[in-house]
């Protein structure tokens, strides 16, 4: 199954393009984490609002910090947020979705559906703001806000899929020989939803990066460090005075990464969706 998916993905030019973009950004992020790039994000290395030059590729900001370094560091922030949120919300969504689907129409399902309904009914930014305030000052406030809201979609999809899988013969057989439910869920049901989780994770990743930008602008973003959202928030105070460095740097990095991810997510979806391939 995964092998086929990879084969199909490989034959999709756009998807491979997207993958390459994502990989390039991931490489930047890894370099930042391991201390090879972007370490001067906070350092004042020039005068304020210098224009682009050999030493400051994207110029400098108000404080005289190098915008290029900050953009690179922002890449790592984006990946950190994206990875953590994606991983946690996907796991949470998969687990709760699987339980909900396996025990569909039981009380556990009802409770999970209720929680989902409640979380879905609160406007997202308000909710994120609320969590960010409730966890005021906590480094992970924004991550938690996103995880708590993003898992519901994954759970809904997995629930539907599990209900379908549950009716397959081998699952019924496993039940018939008395395997415990949890074992069946983890060994036989969840692995069969892996391709769906993969697609969903790529979508969540995009959403997380996008949301980080908005939350940072609203002042609910990361605590220490720099992110593209913070740079854009900074730029919103500068562009009307004619300083576009932050806007162009963060805006274009953000655009290219999102574009790469969207293309990847699209072709992943095509690659795992056999129905669509046949058509």
């Amino acid at each position, binding site marked *: 199954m995964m092998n086929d998916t990879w084969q199909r993905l490989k034959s999709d030019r756009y998807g491979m393009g997207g993958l390459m973009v994502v990989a390039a950004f991931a490489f930047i992020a890894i370099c930042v984490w391991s201390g090879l790039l972007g370490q001067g994000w*906070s350092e004042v290395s020039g005068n304020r609002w210098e224009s682009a030059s050999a030493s400051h590729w994207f110029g400098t900001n108000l404080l005289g910090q190098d915008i290029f370094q900050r953009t690179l560091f922002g890449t790592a922030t984006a990946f950190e947020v994206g990875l953590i949120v994606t991983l946690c919300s996907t796991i949470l969504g998969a687990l709760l979705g699987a339980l909900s689907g396996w025990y569909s129409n039981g009380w556990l399902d009802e409770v999970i559906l209720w929680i989902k309904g409640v979380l879905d009914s609160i406007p997202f930014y308000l909710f994120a703001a609320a969590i960010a305030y409730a966890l005021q000052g906590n480094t992970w406030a924004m991550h938690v806000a996103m995880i708590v809201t993003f898992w519901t979609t994954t759970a809904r999809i997995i629930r539907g899929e599990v209900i379908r899988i549950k009716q397959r013969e081998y699952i019924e057989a496993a039940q018939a020989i008395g395997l415990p439910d949890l074992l069946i869920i983890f060994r036989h049901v969840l692995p069969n939803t892996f391709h769906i989780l993969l697609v969903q994770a790529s979508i969540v990743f995009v959403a997380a990066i996008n949301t980080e930008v908005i939350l940072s602008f609203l*002042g609910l973003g990361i605590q220490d460090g720099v992110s593209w959202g913070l740079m854009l928030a900074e730029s919103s105070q500068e562009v009307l005075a004619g300083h576009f460095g932050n806007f162009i740097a963060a805006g274009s990095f953000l655009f290219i990464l999102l574009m790469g991810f969207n293309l990847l997510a699209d072709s992943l979806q095509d690659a795992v969706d056999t129905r669509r391939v046949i058509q």
Partner: protein
Amino acid sequence: MPNTIKIAMLLGLLLLGGCGDPPATQNDVPVKTYKHAMDGAPGSLDPAQSASLYANFMVVNLYDTLYRYKYLARPYQLQPNVAAGLPEISDDGLRITIRLKPGVYFMDDPAFAQGVGRELHAHDFVYSIKRHFDPASRAQGAWLWQNRIEGLDDWKVAGSDYDTEVEGLRALDDYTIQITLIQPFPQLIHTLTQAYAAIVPREAVEKYGQMLSSHPVGSGPFRLDSRNDTRAVLVKNPDFRKEPFDLEDEGYDPASQADLGLHVLQGKIPPFVDRLEFEFITEDAARWNAFSAGELDFIKVPVSQFDHVLSTRSPLKLSPQLGERYHFEASPESGFIYTNFNMADERLGHHPDPHQASRNRALRCAMVKAFDWEKRNEIFFYNIGRVFPGALAPAVPEYDPDADISYNRRDVQGAIELLQANGWNENTLPTLDYGFPNSVTERQIFEQFRNFMMDAGYPSSKIRPMIFATYGDYQRAYSQGKVALINSSWTMDYPDAENLMQLYYGPNASPGSNSANYDNPDYNRLYEASAAMSESPERTAIYRQMNQMLIDDCVSINGISRTLLFLWDRNIIMKPDRSFLGGYFMRFVDLAEPSRAAP
């Protein structure tokens, strides 16, 4: 399809619903409108709750106070507003008698009998001050008069019954107020210029309760027409008392003010404009753009535009192109910005062990040395802010322009040596939380601060940002001692240095205004000794001595007073103010050409 029509109608209705606020222009009479930009919105318009600069600006236009400052005189001089003259003060300074002008009326409002505004009397003033001592009114100005007026604090303890008389705050008759002080309080009259001391009719409070804050009923030159989160419109109060404008009486200085064209106002009856439109625009860039587009008559120029506005920095000169369209004024702020150390934090502040206390002092002084005022001034204040040591800001006469400013001079090497000499190194340096309410600029200020400290070898991981969602949350946190480095600003309440010295008075420690929690018995004693003194050479000497204590103890990285740049359309005749006079100037604003095409 009838359904389509219904939907279309519904949409139409919704759209109409969104179109509130029809223009109040009468076609035949030209309406004089002055559009004023503010960088924040007022909350409550109840005088008792007018804590913010923005609320102050509006409240003094809606309500009356006993005193105000002269429109044009600098330094500021008191001027009677609804008081008939300056107060009569007994020789011991404890008894103050103030007479009111007769014929001052509240604006018509359903709160009054038959809806007609009645005359403003002395008991209204007494009532308005008492409100600050009534928990039910959610008043915020009690600190101005706490432990100052005979019987007022006891009145509160007794349950805030307005029908009970307070001995030290009495209306002798309709037009005479008598205030009895516990000890001399030379700044009292200044407090009576504050919006907190604006006079509110009891009927309105009783009718509107908490909603008074959005439904002002005063006797001021303007009435509230409409208001939302982004703008407020005030219209002329036609019944405002007729007092002809007198240039000389307002302290006109032809030498410096001739260019403003104020002479044409002589003898006219304020308020001169029909409408005041306040635009609350928090984003600098948006405010500037709206001003450039002609949507506003006045702006406090955002720092990011200083480059564009000024042709030279010293002397401050407006660029010639802008000079054709705008009047320009550079005005020093009546306050300052500073970063306090939390002295109650034993890791860097006061410490019972003298050795540790001295090490902590060295740490603070090293941080002061590492701080680069020049850079701070350049980046955030375009190098036109005024840096000074200690708490005596340039806004007060006690400020010593010849003082030693080595406190403000950066000395990274000195800082490093000082740290080393006192056994501070990467491992022993404490991890400090630097607090700020969330905003892009605050974050930039923090990053700059951290950079300064890093230059002196402070590890960047040991200066941590502590970000708060709201200013109130930040205040709560530092009031509770959770913040080590407190970046803050102080705006003076009245033009007297006492208002600055109290910032480091021990008993004013958190949650009071002494957010540094500085508690030096010597300082406290001097403060108490000078409390009853008015501005005088003796007091100046004491204040300078106290200021030196702040410097020697490295209590705070202070400070800088910003220079504010104002621009206003040449069509507008006025001298704007953002400090003590504040919103009072608006009644004297006039337009050279009354009717201009609406934008």
